[in-house]
């Protein structure tokens, strides 16, 4: 029995050491990517100006584009996975071409507003199209947060800002892995403690048996 506990203890300890080594490796990569991201932001700030790359540029309303899925595994560990929600709802992408088509007639109707009455019938038919286009425009405007955060800093941003975005995106993915490893390390630590207590009890029981 004691040998069995010792064997499990050894296996658990080896697993713990492996997890710690992997955690340290991921952490180093994470920290390096973060530093790379800061360097790119500093380069962008140098190119665009101090105030152009700061918290003042954040949008008034932000919708998250990246989320994390968390799942509990049977042994108590947690799995973390990231998901990017880059595109808006499918209605936006399917409606956009129609909106482009309908803006044409609406504009013509506006342009024709000052023309002769003979063309009023055409303007009336276009007017029925107007509310639909406006509705679609309001639907699109209703989701301002799905805008690429790069656009907060201007229409044309330097390449360094895009590189910063890419670096921090990789950081997010690595963060999920590091978070999972952290929970794994703590679960293995708890298991080690339990096994050590078991081993001590077995050793104490054996000593009492020898004494009697």
């Amino acid at each position, binding site marked *: 029995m004691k040998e069995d506990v010792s064997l499990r203890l050894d296996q658990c300890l080896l697993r713990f050491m492996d997890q710690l080594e992997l955690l340290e490796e991921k952490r180093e990569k994470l920290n390096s990517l973060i530093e790379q991201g*800061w360097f790119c932001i500093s380069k962008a700030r140098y190119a665009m100006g101090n105030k152009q790359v700061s918290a003042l540029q*954040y949008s008034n309303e932000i919708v998250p584009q990246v989320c994390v899925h968390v799942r509990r595994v049977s042994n108590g560990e947690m799995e973390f996975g990231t998901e990017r929600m880059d595109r808006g709802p499918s209605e936006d992408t399917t409606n956009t071409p129609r909106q482009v088509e309908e803006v044409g007639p609406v504009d013509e109707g506006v342009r024709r507003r000052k023309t002769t009455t003979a063309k009023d019938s055409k303007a009336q038919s276009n007017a029925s199209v107007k509310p639909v286009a406006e509705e679609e425009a309001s639907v699109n405007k209703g989701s301002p947060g799905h805008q690429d955060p790069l656009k907060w800093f201007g229409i044309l941003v330097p390449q360094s800002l895009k590189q910063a975005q890419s670096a921090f995106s990789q950081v997010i993915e690595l963060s999920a892995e590091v978070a999972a490893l952290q929970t794994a390390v703590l679960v293995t630590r708890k298991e080690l403690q339990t096994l050590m207590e078991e081993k001590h009890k077995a050793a104490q029981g054996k000593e009492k048996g020898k004494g009697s």
Partner: protein
Amino acid sequence: MAGRAKLVAVIGDEDTCTGFLLSGVGELKKTRESNFLVVEKDTSIAEIEETFRGFLGRDDVGIILINQFVAEMIRHAIDAHVQSIPAVLEIPSKEHPYDASKDSILRRAEGMFSAEDFR
């Protein structure tokens, strides 16, 4: 992967928050409720702690990223958090590199070993 979609919260200096918001993790509602806090020189420890506890209390936050120098200010609150979710990750800042000896998770893992255990 199954599981409800959760957010990544960030507590850090301006560059850290800017970087992570660029990657798309930020949320800012019309009610000014957000999942990030930009820590400046005049940000009080009480505000940082309140924000941290707020994130812990939310069920839609899966990971909290916090600069390690900010984590040092509220170390007692971070050490008291023992649940798996949200996971708290300490990250370096521009002026304070990452120090593994200060990380709450690694300190918990390191503290378990003593000479008696190896008899």
